[in-house]
């Protein structure tokens, strides 16, 4: 009788810990999903100033960006005039670029996916695999801290063993109101490679949003790419015809 009782207690203990572990993983995953949904909205239109900083030079350009859900986005450079009209269309994992000078839409081959996007610290892969963090990783909540009275979750994401991702680990800092504060990329030795950080959280497009984003290589402080959201509007819907190669080529039609 007593034996049975102990066994029962033991069993329920195991069950509880197992359950709470999955609950925790579920938790971390839902935090990430919620925050990605929050940051992306259903659809958005933004004007972004992108600055590429290198030790000996710096250049900046203005980009107009349309996004719809996780899968579709369109970027078009509107300034400086030299680059005006250059565009990138992303649908799912596929990407096309358009260069007005040669008047051609090119579908990016696999060989170009790991190259830098417009010379920045973002690779084409970073753009095309944005949903990879949700689908290919196992997430664990490893802690939380208080920053300015708001709770910030620290989430460790380890890629599934077979997943085609180059990173060994990612660590995300997400504030309790769904704002991503930083996303850090690690190699397989868990050494940091690069980090994206959001600053100046303020009201943008009707919700709190970091106005400035910076992607920085960890081993070189002097190399970074900064995105400044000058305008941001969230929409319920955007037309499907926006995310087509013909619109990439002929804007405004």
């Amino acid at each position, binding site marked *: 009788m007593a034996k049975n009782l102990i066994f029962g207690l033991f069993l329920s203990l195991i069950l509880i810990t197992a359950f709470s572990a999955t609950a925790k993983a579920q938790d971390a995953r839902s935090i990430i999903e919620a925050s990605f949904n929050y940051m992306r909205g259903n659809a958005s239109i933004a004007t972004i100033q992108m600055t590429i900083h290198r030790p000996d030079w710096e250049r900046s350009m203005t980009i107009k960006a349309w996004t719809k859900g996780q899968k579709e986005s369109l970027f078009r450079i509107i300034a400086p005039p030299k680059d005006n009209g250059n565009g990138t269309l992303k649908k799912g994992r596929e990407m096309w670029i358009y260069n007005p000078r040669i008047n051609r839409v090119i579908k990016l081959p696999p060989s170009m996916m790991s190259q830098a996007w417009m010379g920045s610290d973002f690779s084409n892969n970073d753009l095309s695999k944005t949903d990879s963090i949700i689908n290919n990783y196992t997430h664990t909540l490893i802690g939380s801290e208080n920053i300015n009275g708001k709770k910030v979750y620290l989430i460790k994401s380890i890629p599934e063993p077979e997943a*085609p*991702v*180059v990173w060994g680990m990612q660590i995300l800092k997400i504030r309790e109101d769904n704002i991503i504060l930083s996303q850090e990329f690690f*190699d*397989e030795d868990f050494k940091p490679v690069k980090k994206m950080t959001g600053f100046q959280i303020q009201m943008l497009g009707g919700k709190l949003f970091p106005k400035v984003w910076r992607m920085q290589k960890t081993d070189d402080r002097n190399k970074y790419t900064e995105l400044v959201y000058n305008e941001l509007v969230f929409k319920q819907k955007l037309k499907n015809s926006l995310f087509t190669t013909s619109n990439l080529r002929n804007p405004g039609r």
Partner: protein
Amino acid sequence: MYLQIAWRNIWRNSRRTTVIMIAIIIGVWNMVFLGALMRGIVVAMVNNGISTLTGDIQVHQKGFRDDPVIENSIKNPELVENMLNNTLPSDARWASRVRVSAIANNARHSSSVTLVGIDPLREADISFIGSAAIQGSYLKPDDKNGIIVGQALVDKFETKLGYKLILMSQDTSLEIASRAFRISGIFKADLEFTEKKFVFVNMPVLQQMLKLQNGISEVSIILPDHQDALHVKNTLNAELPSNLEVNTWRELLPMLNAYLKIYDGFILIWYLVVFIAMGFGIVNTTLMAVFERMREFGLLKALGMKPGRIIAGVLTETLILLLIGMATGNILAFLCVYALSGSGIDLSAFAAGAEFAGMSRVIFPVISVWDLSAANLVVLVLGLLVSAYPAIKAARFTPVEALRHT
């Protein structure tokens, strides 16, 4: 008689004879030994080319060689494989492969590589990967995630055994296919280029990744003798369906083939250059020897010796000089080649430069019958030819001239 007289004549001035003999010895040694080294470089280049996934003969879908994309693969490999089993000589070996250009990625680096899907057991018999030194382990036939990469790539990617490598390529529906592999083996190759260029995975895994079903890119065949390639090619061509093409390594590696021809010509020119330097020495010495003996030749003439016999006599002297020089030079060269045949000449220190020319890191001299006979014939024939001048000169001396000469 000629021999005996000639032998005595040449040793009348032993110092001069020794000097010219040393010149001939060095010349011949130089021709044979350097010729063997050059031949060694060429042979290594050819062997390298053939074992670096070329083989003596390859079978492709028509169009693959112009545009090596996944769409140009062989769709029905069973047919080809059956036919190869039936027609090839029994000691020929062959293996099928899938090969695509791909991008390898890890957290810090990316580079373009040739991703090769192989049948590990068959491939080991026919290309360098079977005999290459491998750290870790060679591909196991059922390994789903293993990938074998070169040492140079590992160094470049700052990675090591057991780490992940992501490969991206285009599949048959023109979508981007990517897959994670783990480095299960690191190979070393003769050329750094090979180490950077090729990565190996199991063929079924790659076929699945590229949605290729059981299609293959090529069949590579190794024959027991490289020279049979053309003959076997013709037999295969007759048997295979017309949408496939068969090529020998000479067609597959046109650069190498051109190199081979250049080297053949180059070696001959080199022989001539060495000989010209040596030839002047021979003419000079023989001429000296002839003028010294002017009175002697005059006397012989006065006694009624036929000019032809004088020519023969002088030529015999040169012949003895040449034969002794050639024999010693050849022996010396053989000794040098023998000494180097164990370890070769290690060019690792200049690897980057040697790579550029497509040379191996270690050169082993190779003596070929053709080079050897060319060198010796050049020396012998041209040596006799140039010494014909002093010989004729000697035959033309008249007794009167000889008397006047003091």
